[in-house]
């Protein structure tokens, strides 16, 4: 038995035999051909090109239907690359004049193009290099052992192991008896992970060596809850996981029965439970969830993949549709948190020179340097509030000092005045809040709390900045630790400071859906949590099974502890106790 630790990308547990996705490292079956084989080899290449184009077309449609236009654009770049004469002709030239096999011609052309791309220092181009390889490998695979044929050749329900799975592969998994998958590379927020979640397939990514450690036919357990891959489990582990699988099924059935019940602890302490909402992946079943509202609308998607900044009208339509979708319950709209890993295609001021983007010009910093961007978004939000009786909140991302809040407040008041002169007023007052994710804002929150109506804590970034750990950097990712004493103490400081002024605090990072961390958050007296629709009923169930007084004791104990280990032990012990 071998256990690998990766990143939990999509929840659930899958058990079954392994199948390995071939073709990641295309092995040359043959390098040279003889002169009389040239026409046949050219025809083979043409056929593969046509097949690849048809596949990309099909993927584009599927991705469009599942995830929307933004992701579909990705596939159309792939089509352009495939049809690129430089790519196409270089391959044909190699077949005809160097008498290379179609396969060798494709691989050598890829390498040549990749080498010339490599010389360019621009991250835009580095990204395109991946696209090039996605297309090239797909093409090479269509010459020989075809990937799709491979998936359709899977006879019995299996777990897929791959070095890397492109979104275009993921979208096809469900029709092919694939119960779950794991990959060597990838992160929790990669397109592949998002797709797995929306398809309800358990997945673990970032396993580094899974595709080397697993052999076809091995029995695997993919534990999408804890991010584990178990290879050839012993009998004890296997029966343990079978039990967990049954429990998950039972819990899911149970969860459906608590939808209409209030979010309240066993001893009567109420909590507001919101959903993080993405209009692009809003499924039918989400609509049945009874929530307190929308805790976090990330608006970056409106700004991505478009050549010009989105207009007030475009944004207004999104916000209006969202307010209606939530039947005028509270909706918190986060101002665009652009910069860092979210770079739009349209030009912005103070943007290109970021050496250290997560510490650079992102969130409110970027908006203040591009005031028209900020004003357009504020106008679209205020217009929505004038039009319908929505309960809107505006959340400012990446606040580090009170001046930033005041700048936004000033712009907001000016626009409100413009609307007033046109005879328009918001039906309900709009709340203005700050996303606390920078330590300076947490520590000096007392200085800005009177300028704010509410507080949201973005725990993913807050922990990253508290620890000075880039979660994407595999060398240091293990230092990212929600159990670190600094996390509990900082959350406590934020909540206490806000409560002194009667302001509510909501947590909307991953930590909010973490079953083990929940008692700590409740005990710190958090007012509201915002979680993904998929986790919503689970978290609700956990809250309903908690005892607030007990959680308070646990939190007080944790605040006195000086190491991650102590806090982790405390939380684990509590978790075992709850489960028994």
């Amino acid at each position, binding site marked *: 038995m071998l256990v690998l630790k990766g990143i939990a990308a999509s929840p659930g547990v899958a058990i079954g035999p392994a199948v390995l996705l071939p073709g990641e490292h295309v092995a040359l079956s043959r390098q040279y051909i003889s002169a009389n084989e040239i026409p046949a080899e050219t025809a083979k290449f043409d056929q593969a090109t046509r097949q690849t184009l048809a596949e990309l077309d099909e993927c584009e449609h599927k991705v469009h239907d599942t995830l929307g236009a933004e992701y579909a654009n990705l596939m159309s*770049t792939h089509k*352009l*690359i495939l*049809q*690129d*004469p*430089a*790519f196409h002709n270089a391959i044909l030239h190699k077949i005809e004049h160097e008498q290379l096999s179609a396969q060798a011609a494709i691989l050598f052309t890829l390498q040549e*193009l990749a080498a*010339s*791309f490599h010389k*360019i220092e*621009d991250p*835009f*181009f580095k*990204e*395109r290099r991946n696209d*090039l390889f996605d297309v090239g490998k797909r093409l090479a695979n269509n010459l020989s052992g075809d990937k799709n044929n491979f998936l359709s050749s899977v006879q019995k329900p299996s777990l897929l192991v791959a070095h890397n799975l492109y979104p275009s592969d993921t979208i096809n998994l469900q029709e092919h008896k694939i119960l779950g998958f794991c990959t060597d590379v990838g992160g929790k927020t990669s397109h592949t992970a998002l797709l797995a979640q929306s398809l309800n397939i358990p997945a673990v990514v970032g396993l580094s060596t899974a595709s080397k450690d697993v052999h076809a036919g091995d029995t695997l357990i993919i534990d999408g809850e804890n991010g584990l891959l178990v290879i050839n489990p012993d009998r004890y582990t296997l029966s343990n996981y079978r039990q967990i699988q049954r429990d998950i099924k039972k819990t899911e059935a149970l969860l459906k029965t608590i939808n209409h019940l209030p979010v309240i602890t066993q001893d009567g302490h109420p909590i507001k439970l919101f959903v993080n909402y993405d209009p692009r992946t809003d499924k039918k079943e989400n609509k049945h969830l009874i929530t307190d509202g929308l805790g976090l609308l990330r608006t970056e998607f409106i700004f991505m993949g478009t*050549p*010009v900044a989105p207009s007030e009208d475009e944004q207004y339509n999104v916000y209006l549709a969202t307010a209606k979708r939530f039947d005028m319950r509270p909706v918190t709209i986060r101002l665009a948190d652009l910069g860092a890993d979210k770079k739009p*295609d*349209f*030009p912005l001021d103070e943007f*290109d020179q970021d050496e250290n983007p997560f510490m650079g010009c992102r969130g409110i910093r970027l908006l203040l340097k591009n005031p028209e961007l900020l004003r357009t978004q504020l106008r679209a939000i205020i217009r929505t509030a004038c039009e319908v009786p929505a309960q809107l909140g505006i959340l400012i991302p990446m606040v580090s000092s009170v001046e930033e809040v005041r700048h936004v407040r000033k712009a907001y008041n000016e626009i409100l005045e413009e609307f007033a002169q046109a005879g328009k007023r918001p039906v309900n007052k709009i709340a203005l809040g700050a996303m606390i994710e920078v330590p300076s804002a947490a520590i000096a929150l007392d200085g800005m709390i009177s300028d704010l109506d509410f507080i949201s804590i973005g725990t993913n970034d807050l922990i990253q900045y508290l620890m000075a750990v880039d979660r994407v950097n595999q060398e240091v990712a293990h230092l990212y630790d929600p159990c670190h004493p600094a996390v509990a103490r900082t959350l406590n400081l934020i909540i206490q400071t806000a409560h002194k002024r009667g302001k509510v605090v909501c947590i909307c990072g991953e930590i909010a859906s973490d079953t083990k961390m929940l008692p700590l958050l409740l005990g710190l007296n958090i007012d509201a949590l915002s979680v993904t629709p998929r986790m919503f009923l689970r978290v609700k169930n956990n809250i309903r099974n908690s005892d607030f007084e007990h959680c308070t004791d646990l939190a007080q104990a944790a605040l006195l502890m000086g190491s991650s280990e102590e806090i982790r032990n405390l939380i684990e012990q509590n978790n075992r106790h709850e489960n028994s």
Partner: protein
Amino acid sequence: MIELDLKIINQLGLHARPAALIAQTAGNYKSTIGLTKDGVRVDAKSIMGVMMLAAEHGSVLHLTAEGADEQEAAQAIKTLFENKFNEEF
């Protein structure tokens, strides 16, 4: 044959999206269309070729178009440059 000098006036230069636009537009015409920068000539119908020019804001590209629809082709690409690839207002 038509020859034109085109200056890149959009801030970000020829990154992926404008390159895609040029390749797509050029692909609509039968003429042979080339872009030259610093002695490197690429096929304007090739997205990767255009990207590899790595042309920045302020640089000048030399366009050649030859074929039945060279007039229209050159004009269409010139318009893209002049409109800053629809990136700025």
